[in-house]
């Protein structure tokens, strides 16, 4: 996986964690602000769920030529 994709997943999880922390830290949740946070969180969850979907693994044997080339 490319570093960008990883950062994307990691970044989205990070944002989601921030939203969770926001909810946990509020003494009294402002419903309007909360709704915005829920909407933002829902979009992040949707994207991350897409990545969680089953994706076939790719298998490839390293060609012998590469090995010979090195030798």
């Amino acid at each position: 996986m490319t570093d960008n994709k990883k950062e994307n997943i990691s970044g989205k999880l990070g944002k989601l964690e921030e939203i969770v922390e926001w909810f946990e830290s509020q003494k009294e949740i402002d419903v309007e602000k909360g709704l915005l946070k829920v909407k933002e969180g829902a979009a992040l969850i949707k994207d991350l769920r897409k990545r969680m979907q089953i994706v076939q693994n790719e298998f490839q044997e390293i060609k012998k030529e590469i090995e010979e080339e090195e030798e």
Partner: protein
Amino acid sequence: MQKDTQQGLFADSGEKGNTKIKKSSKKKIVTPKAEVAESVSETPEMIFSVGEFLDYINEVFRAREYTVEGEITECNPHPTGLYFTLKDKKGDGVLSCYMNPYAYRMLGVPLEVGMLVKAIGAPNIYKPKGRFSFVARKIELSGEGSLRKAYELLKKKLEAEGLFTRKRPLPEFIGSVGVITSKTGAVIDDFRKNLKPLGFKVFLHDVRVEGASAPNQIIHALRSFNKKMPDLDVIVLIRGGGSLEDMQAFNNELVVREIFASQIPVIAGIGHDRDVPIASLTADRMTSTPSFSAAIVNESWDRLFKNLPLMEGTILEFYGVALTDAIHTVENASAHLAGVFQSIAGRYERSVKDIVRFFDSALERAEERLRRAAQLLTALDPERNLKLGYSIVFGEGGRVVRSADELKRGSRIRARFGKGSLEAIVEKVQEK
């Protein structure tokens, strides 16, 4: 003890002074072995110089490889190579052996007196001294005791160097995996089956995992991945279980150092019984089976798979509670407002009644006043007085005469009655 290099052992001494051998036969000495043998049989009268004879014998010796098993009774590593002696456990056979420094370095297994080994190579006679020795190209440990001893020695040495303490964290969300193992056998299938379908890109480097060629192939695969595919997230080195002898490639110093040198983190999934392979001790993560190695790769996605549902639940729960609270607040506020409105409406209703009442009363009062005014007006109406018998006298100029002294004798007057009027001339005025 010999101190010459292997090159020295095989070097032509170049005896230029020998004249007893014809030039043609000299040439034949350096020809391939078959031709040499043929030339010897064809020229029985040929006389060798010592050097030529040794060259010839060495050629014959090198025609094939031999494997000699024996116990090491002397062992002297030296910059020019390893000098050691093999002896039979029973009997009195002793063999002086040599291994060139490169081959010794590539051995990757420490040797000690008392170890039972198999030396693979060919004999050679060192020309300057005429000394016979066995030149080992390869050495294999033989017997459980030797293997264990070598294992313990290497483990102790590398542990002291700190090779087992460096453990790098594996990257999160592993995507590309370089696998080093044999492509045949259950191991790779086991690994593949246990890898979750998360779109991993798996590159397999097929290697021998036991036998003499295994260490070199594993080293090559590690180098190849690091050089050709440096962006790999992780390298997985796997093989099934086996005896200490089967595991020699994974207790090989060169293999172990290559694992340590890898820029890409290494997971070792090497089956073992009692002795943990030194390769496993050096790797960044160690497991005992290929399936556990796959599980470690899968684990790198745990933050997403385990935390996402939890975070989703937390957000919804918190917001749910906040929303319920807000609804209750609104309901309470509505109820309160309704009360306030009812109260205001009641007061308004009362006010309207008061106003209406006030207006009614004011109207009545106005009507009364109007009625009285009308009565008054009616009483004052001159027409009504004329009808009652009164009359109005108008003097000259049409002015109403209010007093007798406004008139004199002969004044012309006009009198108006309830019905009709008359004109007359005043005859007498009585002022009183």
